[in-house]
């Protein structure tokens, strides 16, 4: 049993981390007032850009290629999200439709470019991030084996970003303004806050973080880009709701979903879990989200003005 848990754990974490960072991106966007269901597409852009960059650079400079690729993923994710930002913020477009367009465009465009450059829709990288044990901490009984052994650097990067995000949102002036834009943009506007600017930052952060999420998938467990992130972007939306738009909430939600999904994938192989039909485990995160939506419907902490266009002229 213990063997199983300690073997499954790293996979579960590897699955959770992209979910977490993408969800965090969604948090910044929605907290600023812009609904972003294009997270799926932005993850694809991230996976694609990092795959492309890494596969090109790895033969030449094996040391830095992966991190440059990850950086590229964040940059291109942020850039691609500008489409959504411009449509939602400046043109008052319907944010759900714009997000859907982003998803479709990302999926089609990335494969298009991949095919043009490499002939097939897939891009493979030679190697991903190495796994390592954290000195000292990995020697702690039980916890050490679970959390601090065989970890990826990207995991720690994401957790660092999470901590930083918590700090920014709740302890800085920018965080106060961000939250104000999502709850009552007219109040922020009257107080002299540039709502458009804050929302652009929110959306671009969601693009950068989702891009990082896509890259994380590539360099940890996937190893190749194939045009899709299998619904992880949508699952991170579920995470965001389940976590009630709070950084620590989505940390918990991401772990919860991450583990459920991993169990579903490995359940066939592990006799102990094979009793539970795979279907139950696979649909578990989605069903749980539906239930959470019902339970939270009365007291939802969704940013009040998320999804509404901010029209300067209206009072």
């Amino acid at each position, binding site marked *: 049993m213990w063997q199983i848990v300690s073997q499954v754990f790293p996979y579960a974490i590897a699955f959770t981390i992209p979910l977490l960072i993408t969800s965090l991106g969604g948090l910044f966007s929605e907290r600023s007032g812009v609904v972003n269901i294009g997270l799926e597409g932005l993850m694809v852009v991230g996976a694609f850009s990092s795959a492309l960059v890494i596969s090109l650079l790895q033969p030449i400079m094996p040391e830095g290629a992966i991190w440059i690729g990850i950086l590229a993923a964040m940059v291109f994710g942020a850039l691609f999200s500008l489409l959504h930002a411009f449509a939602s913020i400046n043109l008052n477009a319907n944010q759900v439709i714009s997000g859907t367009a982003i998803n479709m465009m990302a999926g089609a465009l990335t494969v298009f470019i991949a095919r043009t450059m490499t002939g097939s829709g897939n891009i493979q990288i030679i190697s991903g991030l190495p796994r390592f044990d954290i000195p000292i901490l990995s020697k702690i009984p039980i916890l050490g084996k679970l959390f601090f052994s065989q970890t990826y650097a990207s995991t720690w990067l994401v957790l660092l970003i999470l901590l930083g995000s918590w700090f920014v949102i709740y302890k800085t002036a920018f965080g106060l303004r961000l939250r104000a834009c999502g*709850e009552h943009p007219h109040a*922020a506007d009257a107080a*002299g806050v540039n709502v458009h600017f804050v929302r652009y930052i929110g959306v671009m952060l969601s693009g950068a973080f989702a891009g990082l999420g896509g890259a994380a998938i590539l360099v940890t467990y996937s190893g190749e880009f194939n045009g899709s992130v299998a619904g992880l972007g949508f699952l991170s939306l579920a995470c965001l709701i389940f976590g009630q738009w709070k950084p620590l909430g989505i940390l918990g939600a991401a772990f919860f979903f991450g583990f459920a999904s991993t169990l579903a994938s490995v359940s066939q192989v592990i006799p102990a879990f094979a009793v539970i039909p795979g279907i139950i485990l696979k649909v578990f995160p989605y069903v749980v989200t539906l239930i959470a939506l019902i339970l939270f419907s009365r007291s939802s902490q969704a940013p009040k003005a998320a999804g509404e266009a901010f029209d*300067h002229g209206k*009072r």
Partner: protein
Amino acid sequence: MDYVVEMQNIRKEFPGIVANDDVSVNLKKGEIHALLGENGAGKSTLMSILFGLYKPDRGLIKVNGKEVIINNPNQANELGIGMVHQHFKLVHNFTVTENIILGLEPKHGLTLNLKAASKKIHELSEKYKLDVNPNALIENISVGMQQRVEILKMLYRNAEILIFDEPTAVLTPQEILELMKIMKNLTEEGKSILLITHKLKEIKAAADRCTVIRRGKVIGTVDVADTTTAQMAEMMVGRVVSFTVDKKEQEAGDVVLDIQKLSAMGNHGVMGLNDFSLQVRTGEIVGVAGVDGNGQTELVEALTGLRKIESGSVILDGIDISKSTIRDRIESGMAHIPEDRHKHGLILDYSLEENMVLEIYNKPPYSKNGFLKKDEIRKHADKIIKDFDVRSGEGPITITRSMSGGNQQKAIVGREVDHNPNLLIAVQPTRGLDVGSIEYIHKRLVEQRDSGKGVLLISLELDEVLDLSDRIAIINHGELVGLVKASETNENEVGLMMAGVGK
């Protein structure tokens, strides 16, 4: 004379309408200067320009003698101009302190310095006698305190010139008196105040001078002490205004609406309406007076079926309708002119004729076998348009969203009256309308009463209630606290009962 603010020859145009046409207003130091005009006259637009929310097409602004350009609220703040908005711009789940410092946050390195903020707010609060609880969440404090937070927002930014936009619309009579005191304090400390309002009595009570604006143009600037309310009203509307409505004495008939010990839940888990009993007879108008938020909404919704009744009953024409559906109540002879014409009264994206059959589309002759009969619907709309003088861009096919508030309301009144109801419930029927529309709707309500129908009028405008009603019920904290004959009472007596005094 030194003016702290001069706005000269301001012009501002929006698509299809000139909101400000060559408007000039000036503000002396230490004065309270009122801007009087009907809804839509252009006063709010003018002040939004001063506050940097809009840019004027033509004209100039001088502050303390120097010409300035104000591009956004931040620049207005830097010039010492602050604005208390009519619809408060407060974030509901932030604390009082967080709302005040938003946009001008004191920082300690990277983090917010809430301690320094608290200190400054405390000082301001003491100096200007603005009592607030700095750590309370906005959604939990009273409307009066919310307004004080808005004022503190301005003082925190060292505003010298304060603009108040319709500040008394949401206050109790008590809180209005307190606000007047606060404004006097502020001017004594050297601040200058611009007061946007359409309430003549408050101008008389608080203002030094008054500039009257009508349809975007300045009619004149007067010294308040030397001008009567009648004179100001005439300037505001452009003709002599009759403040009272022509109503003959008449005997009321049988009971058409019998409300028996009605109770309903409010919105925050407490009882909103408590053991309320009232009768309305044919041929009379019963007015319900009360301060906003004292159970009027719960009463109306319980009567019309939009809210569940916890206990008690509603009898219409002898039939108990307490458990009936909304549709059944309409069909039993109850009509409802709702408080919020955009939320409940109309489907804004539907055309005028579609809205006129909103409650009867499924009945002959408007439909047959599940299909709509468009020509009958058209005829019905044409009739209401004619009978009720409803003006619109394209007649029956106009999308109601593009109609003016007054005409939207006339259409709703027309639709409800056309049902020939035995009981007409009219809630805030003249809110936000120009004087012409107000007079028209008052006339129609009295017409209903004269023709032997029962009218239940619920309004926050005490004058309207006193003017139209035969009898007046006063509601406070969800309970009936007084029931008087309109001819035997006056504003003071009713006002005291509204505030919960003199039960």
